[in-house]
């Protein structure tokens, strides 16, 4: 036997200069991931389809006095107020429910950054969707008033518009928070309907039977402050303080706790 063994002497691996992943790129990727799945695609389609239909229904259903920009914008924005929180929920929970987090969190081993990018992407979708609702409402208003032979009424002041935007963003933030806390799609969606449909009734009932709770309700019932926002009726300092209080209770505190657990949890 000759002694010519081929030594597989590996040259010391050349360390390439690798630049860190920029946050803007993460946001872009997360934005893409919200709509490149089958469920994401259909949520997007449902917004695009339902908003014009809702705006169109105003022409058919509303009395002449209500053929105004407010009616149209409200109608086209209504489907969004339901669908946007779902988009926010799935943006977070799909990483766990669909287990894609295994790849996501190995490509970016900083969960805080990934969740932050998801939050920014969610915010962008919220702002974009609401802008779309206002645009669809404006089109509906022009067309609707022309069809009904009425003067076009533009009756949404800026303060009201910003509050409607804020209302949608708060709804998405509630969904996002539930996603972070639950980390499971079905649980978070059920959770959302509990806090948005069941909870208001319970709190209302409590306020009816317990006097002490009547004054407290606006400070703890996030649906109460949501209605105020969508009506554009959050005006006084006290009302803004109430909004701050419900936001702290239903978003800030659970989000901080949820993020703390999320960052330490095991991704399987």
């Amino acid at each position, binding site marked *: 036997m000759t002694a010519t063994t081929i030594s597989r002497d590996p040259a010391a691996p050349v360390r390439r200069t690798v630049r860190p992943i920029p946050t803007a790129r993460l946001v872009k990727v997360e934005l893409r991931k919200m709509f490149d*799945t089958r469920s994401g695609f259909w949520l997007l389609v449902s917004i695009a389809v339902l908003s014009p239909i809702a705006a169109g229904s105003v022409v058919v259903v509303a009395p002449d006095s209500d053929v105004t920009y407010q009616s149209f914008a409200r109608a086209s924005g209504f489907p969004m107020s339901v669908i946007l929180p779902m988009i926010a929920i799935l943006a977070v929970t799909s990483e766990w429910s669909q287990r*894609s987090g295994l790849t996501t969190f*190995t490509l970016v081993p*900083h969960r805080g950054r990934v969740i932050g990018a998801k939050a920014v992407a969610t915010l962008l979708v919220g702002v974009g969707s609401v802008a779309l609702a206002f645009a669809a409402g404006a089109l509906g208003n022009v067309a609707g008033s022309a069809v009904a032979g009425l003067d076009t009424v533009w009756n949404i002041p800026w303060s009201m518009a910003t509050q409607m935007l804020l209302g949608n963003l708060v709804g998405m933030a509630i969904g996002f928070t539930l996603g972070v806390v639950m980390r499971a799609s079905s649980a978070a969606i059920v959770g959302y309907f509990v806090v948005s449909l069941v909870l208001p009734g319970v709190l209302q009932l409590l306020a009816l039977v317990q006097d002490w709770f009547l004054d407290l309700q606006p400070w703890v019932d996030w649906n109460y402050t949501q209605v105020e926002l969508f009506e554009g009726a959050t005006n006084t300092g006290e009302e803004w303080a109430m909004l701050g209080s419900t936001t702290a209770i239903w978003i800030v505190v659970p989000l901080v706790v949820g993020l703390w657990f999320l960052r330490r949890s095991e991704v399987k």
Partner: protein
Amino acid sequence: MITVESLTRRYAGFTAVDDVSFTARPGRVTGFLGPNGAGKSTTMRVMVGLTVPTAGSATIDGRRFADLPNPGLEVGVLLDASAQHAGRTGREILAVAAATMGLPGSRVDEMLELVSLTPTEAGRRVRNYSLGMRQRLGIATALLGDPQVLILDEPANGLDPAGIRWMRDLLTGFAGRGGTVLLSSHLLHEIEVIADDLVVIGNGRIVASGTKDELLASAGTLARTPSPRDLAHALEQAGIPSTLAGDGSVRTEADPARVGAVALAAGLALTELRSAEGAGLEDMFLSLTADTQREGVAA
């Protein structure tokens, strides 16, 4: 180079990984073996930062995985081929990974071609993929960033024979170019063919580690002859203990040259004479992990 030092991971009530240390060196394929639940996957998850260790550390070229600026370009990871969003297409999954790493879209097509997924298959949603196709997609994701290190958990699972051969050539070539491969598998034959180094884990502890040649050196010799009893007798006379296996072969600790000489002296024709490597890894695996086997198999 992957370095695992005194790694421990405890859960409430039990220790999944217990003081595990080993290295996977560049230019070599390191096979990571162990029975179900031995702690292989937990160790691999700790390496890539998906699980926080209770104590100890795992580093890639001296750095913690979380400290790598763009891990996808340095370490290719495949832990579970089924862990993908079922509603995304195969191509989209690669495109998202490429976008995260900052790679051009053309890289996606190169990878699809490398793992033999056709454009039609790549356009289908992953929920319709077979396990083998998911495995190929997972390999493509791992190789996308042209990394220097590969960490693969059961990559041959679900692949057809041609796919297994392809995977073997791919990993051997990768290590041949100086890359580091850490590979876990239950397919012992597969590991035996491909691995240069072995790490065997049982009940969360390392039970053996070293080069394959070292670990299998003690495996001895397997000989076949039309009259195995005579051979066993001749070996005994020569002072070499042997065992008659049920399949008619004779196994002994002695090296093949000595067994051949004994057979020649006894005038016995041998039909087969070789190092008992074929069964060696399985025997070694079962004896090393005997205490931890669910079935309680003694080697």
